[in-house]
């Protein structure tokens, strides 16, 4: 398609203007307001015991949920694309479910399942496992909301590369695992990487589902997004801004880390 110079220019202005309005300006305001009271105040605000605990809890939950979802995502994508099982549509639907329903509903569902009066709650409590108002529940909620990302990124790549390379590897004597390890995984690594970045971003930023099952015990079950909300509703605006900025830094660090890893992988 060719467009006139005016048309092209107006498309660019529209796209950039849209981005600026929705993303750049709000984030800029947050950063501006964060550092308005001075750098010292920001550092004080993000080094309180509650903030440090929230930071590590956020990292911990992401560190459990993202690898589990990555493995599940790759396996599920392989099942969806490479096998001819019945009921594939059902698996696809279940995987997409977290996109379709509100995170708060997911949190409530977990609550109903694992809560004190839920189906599984009493049994697990007898075994000494507390899910709701505790870290396991928050991890579960995070896993659930992040479920589709890796599958969604990897499945199209698998479809795109086709299975000829895998068949070639098989005729050359490679076992299934060798084929996966040496042929499939390198071919889908961009999709996996992108899925991991999206999952991580969602995992560290998740509010709704985690909020329902966390119980918000300060220093124990409060993640950074919950801390932001907590400080905001307690009129600690600069504290909320500081915590938000910290979240943004984690997200950027993840993105940067994946990019560096990919560069390394490519120049190999």
């Amino acid at each position, binding site marked *: 398609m060719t467009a006139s110079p005016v048309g092209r220019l107006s498309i660019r202005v529209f796209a950039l203007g849209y981005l600026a309005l929705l993303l750049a300006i709000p984030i800029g305001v947050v950063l501006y307001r964060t550092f308005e009271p001075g750098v010292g105040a920001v550092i004080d605000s993000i080094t309180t015991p509650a903030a440090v605990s929230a930071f590590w809890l956020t990292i911990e939950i992401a560190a459990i949920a993202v690898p589990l979802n990555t493995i599940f995502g790759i396996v599920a994508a392989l099942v969806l694309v490479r096998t001819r099982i019945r009921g594939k549509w059902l698996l696809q639907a279940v995987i997409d479910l977290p996109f379709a329903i509100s995170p708060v509903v997911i949190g409530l569902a977990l609550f109903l399942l694992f809560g004190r009066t839920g189906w599984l709650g009493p049994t697990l409590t007898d075994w000494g496992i507390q899910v709701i108002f505790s870290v396991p529940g928050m991890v579960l909620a995070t896993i659930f909301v992040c479920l589709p990302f890796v599958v969604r990124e990897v499945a199209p790549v698998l479809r795109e590369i086709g299975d000829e390379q895998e*068949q070639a590897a098989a005729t050359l004597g490679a076992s299934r695992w060798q084929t996966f390890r040496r042929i499939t995984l390198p071919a889908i690594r961009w999709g996996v990487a992108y899925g991991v970045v999206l999952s991580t971003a969602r995992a560290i930023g998740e509010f709704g589902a985690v909020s329902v099952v966390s119980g918000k015990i300060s220093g124990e079950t409060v993640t950074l997004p919950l801390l932001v909300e907590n400080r905001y509703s307690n009129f600690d605006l600069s504290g909320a801004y500081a915590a938000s900025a910290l979240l943004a830094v984690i997200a950027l660090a993840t993105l940067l880390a994946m990019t560096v890893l990919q560069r390394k992988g490519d120049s190999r």
Partner: protein
Amino acid sequence: MIAVSGVSKHYGDFAALDDVSIDIQPGALTALLGPSGSGKSTLLRVIAGLETPDTGSVVIEDRDVTNVPPQRRDIGFVFQHYAAFKHMTVRDNVGFGLKVRKRPKAEIDAKVDELLGIVGLAGYQERYPSQLSGGQRQRMALARALAVEPKVLLLDEPFGALDANVRAELRAWLRRLHEEVHVTTVLVTHDQEEAMELADRIVVLNKGRIEQVGAPRELYDAPANEFVMGFLGPVARLGDGLVRPHDLVLRPDPDGTAQEAQVTRIVHLGFEVRVELELAGDDGAIAAQLTRHELEQLEIAEGDIVFVRPGGRRFERPAVAEAPAPAEAPAPAVEPAA
């Protein structure tokens, strides 16, 4: 030797292979020839273990491999679209089979270098497939398949994705390679010229069944039915029979059983001339193939009336098999993977 017995393969209602049995001679180059959807690729993939037949068995060198996965069949397989491992160098591609067999690195390197020399890719070890031309990629794929010293080499339309001139070059090259390596080779193709040029034996398939097996000349000279005759070369329908256009005889005057026809067009194709004729009595159009010399002696021009009869071999309609559209070369330029 490869022995395929009673193999059937259905996809839903579609019979890709219908009770196919064939013995493939050791050391020879056998071509599986047929139109798109004839089952030739499926048969090759059944031999490779990439498809599981519904019924029947596959024996490779006295070992029943029907239920053996492709990994343990001792085969080399070359795909139409190369199936190059894109993220690996040429060296790693060719050495892949040996690497998964955990052979020592020195041995792999030596074997890779030797094979790349044979396929004419010496010095390309550190390139990536994306830096090679189509023909080079396919030669790399052949080297990769040969590296594991397979008992049989299976080629699925190996030149189908290449330009015509590269295809012709690789054909000649493959024939020479086969004479050097002498591994039992099965080649799938829809191009009768390719099959005739390369193969010691041709297996003609149609609609999941074998129509005829034989040496290229046998099939050309003594086709078992109209389908084989039509698929192996151009044919013209004259009366009740099929005849090769170069076997048609034209005369300026009535001559026994010869049929009257009007010359509609004369096409000069270098040494050969195609004379397009409209048969009298609404019997349709056919094309005769003459040499320039013959045409000059005939002294005919467009619009003239001539008399045409089959000379040489003629295929009288005895068989039940359907023939493809006559008077047309059967080889399509491109064909989706069957």
